[in-house]
């Protein structure tokens, strides 16, 4: 039980470091650590498939893509555009207002049943695969088309225009 609170504290701490660090490269590295703590959360919930996918896809692929683009554009602390302190302060206040509103409305809900694993093998690959390929077969195929479209779009956008150059 206390493991959850410790890991939750680490997640919040590193998420705050992500958005308040000046250097963008450090920011990406803190975000990687945040996603690692999310992987630990998935393991605690016994969602093993999601833990592995989060580890490989988010930490391995997406974060490396971010880091790669940051290094390609050669961004560092000196080139970092900063907002004025007043705008930053207003942004933090607005975020806190959102948090207070959400917390107050959840307090009204009063769901405080403890999370219990009713079915321990719910997050295993075999069980999720059966659900994915029976109930969710059409969305699965459509998401493959989405990924193909995104790939074509990304290549088309990032490629140099031959007419202009």
């Amino acid at each position: 039980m206390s493991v959850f609170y410790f890991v939750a504290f680490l997640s919040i701490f590193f998420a705050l470091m992500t958005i308040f660090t000046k250097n963008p490269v450090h920011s990406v590295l803190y975000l990687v650590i945040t996603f690692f703590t999310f992987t630990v959360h998935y393991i605690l919930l016994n969602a093993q498939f999601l833990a592995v996918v989060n580890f490989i896809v988010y930490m391995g692929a997406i974060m490396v893509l971010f880091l790669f683009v940051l290094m390609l554009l050669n961004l560092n602390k000196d080139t970092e555009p900063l907002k004025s302190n007043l705008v930053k302060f207003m942004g933090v206040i607005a975020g806190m207002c959102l948090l207070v509103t959400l917390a107050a409305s959840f307090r009204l809900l009063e769901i405080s049943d403890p999370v219990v694993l009713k079915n321990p093998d719910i997050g295993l690959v075999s069980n999720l695969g059966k659900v994915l390929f029976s109930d969710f077969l059409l969305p699965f195929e459509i998401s493959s088309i989405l990924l193909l479209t995104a790939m074509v779009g990304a290549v088309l956008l990032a490629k140099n225009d031959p007419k202009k150059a």
Partner: protein
Amino acid sequence: METIVQNIQGVPLNHYILFCSIIFAIGVMGVLTRRNVIIIMMSVELMLNSVNLLLTAFSVHHGDPAGQVFVFFIMALAAAEVAVGLAIIVMVYRNTRSVDINALNRLRG
């Protein structure tokens, strides 16, 4: 397996909801306070991840695997979004030599 089950026994669902809303609010703050487009996209990723964790917690709580399948789809969508978004950022950087979000205000009509 037994220790894992013992570990999450007793964490109320409320605490998962509160934790995920805190992470979501941190993502919103990141979008509002930063001007670097890449950091803004990272904050969006943070928000997506908080929703993923909440979906998983509800899925485990109700014993329904559909929630975890949704998380899988959200991850595929996030990968597509990041690929296209970073391509757009690289293109904007090539034209304006900056990743400042204010460089895009010429889109204003």
